[in-house]
């Protein structure tokens, strides 16, 4: 009906984008400033960038192994949560199980737990209960993948439920009539149809896992430390190495940026929290 003026939209969005980008830009500025310049009058415009921090971070073998751990843990966790969440939502949306709405709600509550106090029981469980012989879950990638499920699996279920509910049951039935097994119905009919929802769930759980700090800091020691815990090594009583921290931060942003960019177009299609039906 109304003609919208693209100029206004562009000006508006440029402003919003400026506000959005500025802290990220500033992160970058900090990463290319020598430490000696950080605590003096700030300049908005970047001049004479200093790449020493990048050289240091890139050359740090520990950080490289943290990067690998981060990738393995967040990818493993995102896949696990998305697949298990998909199965769970399929069950919740297709079966008439007693009390399934309560079950749905109570799975979500796992995300509400304030993390700090759960660290102690998790530590005890992972060192003393979930241990076989010399192997214990603490400080392992698989352990972190499982621990991250406590907040990501509820999220996956929450995001995927409307997607599953939105796929007509008739499709399953048609496939059964055509002779498919339950497994085939799930994997070949329903799963592909959920792709946008699955993509969004995958990316968001991945980002949540990638960015998690507190659990990783406490429940890993040597073998499974992640990039975010690497950050904490530069906050010390003898000076916080902001430049290095910012550089690591920039490094943590890049994979997230790539993953996010890949599924951009699915995001809106897949985020169907409480979608309205007719």
């Amino acid at each position, binding site marked *: 009906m109304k003609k919208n003026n693209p100029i206004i939209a562009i000006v508006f969005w440029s402003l919003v984008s400026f506000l959005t980008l500025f802290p990220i830009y500033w992160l970058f500025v900090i990463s290319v400033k020598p430490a000696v310049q950080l605590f003096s009058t700030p300049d908005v415009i970047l001049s004479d960038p200093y790449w020493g921090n990048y050289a240091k971070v890139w050359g740090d073998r520990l950080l490289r192994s943290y990067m690998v751990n981060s990738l393995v843990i967040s990818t493993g966790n995102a896949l696990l949560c998305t697949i298990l969440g998909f199965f769970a939502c399929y069950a919740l949306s*297709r079966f008439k199980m007693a009390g399934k709405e309560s079950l749905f709600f109570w799975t979500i509550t796992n995300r509400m737990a304030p993390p700090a106090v*759960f*660290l102690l029981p998790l530590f005890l*469980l992972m060192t003393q209960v979930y241990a076989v012989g010399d192997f214990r879950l603490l400080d392992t990638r698989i352990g972190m993948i499982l621990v991250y499920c406590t907040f990501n699996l509820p999220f996956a279920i929450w995001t995927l*439920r409307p997607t599953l*509910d939105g796929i007509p049951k008739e499709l399953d039935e048609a496939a059964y009539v055509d002779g498919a097994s339950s497994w085939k119905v799930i994997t070949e009919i329903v799963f592909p149809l959920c792709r946008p929802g699955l993509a969004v769930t995958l990316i968001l759980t991945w980002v949540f896992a990638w*960015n998690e700090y507190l659990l990783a800091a406490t429940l890993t020691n040597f073998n499974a430390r992640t990039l975010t815990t690497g950050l904490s090594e530069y906050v010390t009583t003898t000076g916080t190495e902001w430049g290095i921290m910012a550089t690591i931060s920039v490094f943590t942003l890049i994979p*997230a940026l790539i993953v996010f960019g890949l599924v951009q177009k699915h995001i809106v299609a897949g985020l169907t929290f*409480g979608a309205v039906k007719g």
Partner: protein
Amino acid sequence: MQSNRLGWILLAPTLAILFFFGVLPFIYVVYVSFHQWNPFAADPTMIFNGADNFRKIVFDAEFLNSVGVTVLFVLFAVISELVVGYILAQAFMKEFPGKAIFRTIHTLPLIMAPIIVGSVWKLMMTPSIGIIPHYLNEWFGITVNIGTSPVAAFATIIIMDIWHWTPLVTLTLIAALVSLPPDPFEQAQIDGANKRQIFFHITVPMIAPAVVATVFIRLMDALRTVDEVWMLTGGGPGSATRFVGVHIFKEVFPKTNYGYGSTISVIVLYLTIVACWLLYVTMLAPRSKKD
């Protein structure tokens, strides 16, 4: 047809993981919450003390204050995120050049780790040296000091949270708006509703499920906010930004007050679950049940 057994099989791994990594620790926390336990007390063992921790908590001014500021924070942050997110989502419903790029830019903060967000904002907000206080002072003569002004610190955290999490709200609202059928809106135009009336009578009720679902996620996450605040203000100035997450953190980390810390967590979890449950049964469940 399919038997319920398959349903339970599909749910089993989820329930197992949540049981072993969510429910068991929770049971342990509840167990500890009835004990006095500080490994650095004169008696470092776990001593059962009945409901004494709960007796203490209802008079604990620090805790009650932290609940208060948390509620205030969550209200401010989530409502602002909804309003800003809705405005931006609506703005995205129109076509304009470069829309895809702007949308990508707008979602960027989402991918940043809270601890990084806290660090960047700390550097930007450091009194006198940070770029924001510096130029606010230089250009407008406004002095902003998050070290002395509770309002400035609180506002900074809210702005930071809006900056960080509005994109999630925007995206879910765009998804909700895109999936709305156009007919009721045209019908409402013909029925004589003006813009405001359409918004309140048609748009709001029709995107309400998406809004509530988004609020739900944001509420849960905002209540757990620790990393950003820890980096930015450490809970200060005074106790102005000592949110429950930060409060619990201080109770169990430096103070190693495992017993009472567990009690606080149990109460916080209790309050969170009750709030979310009310939201869920009143706003979300009825719709999903009837469909």
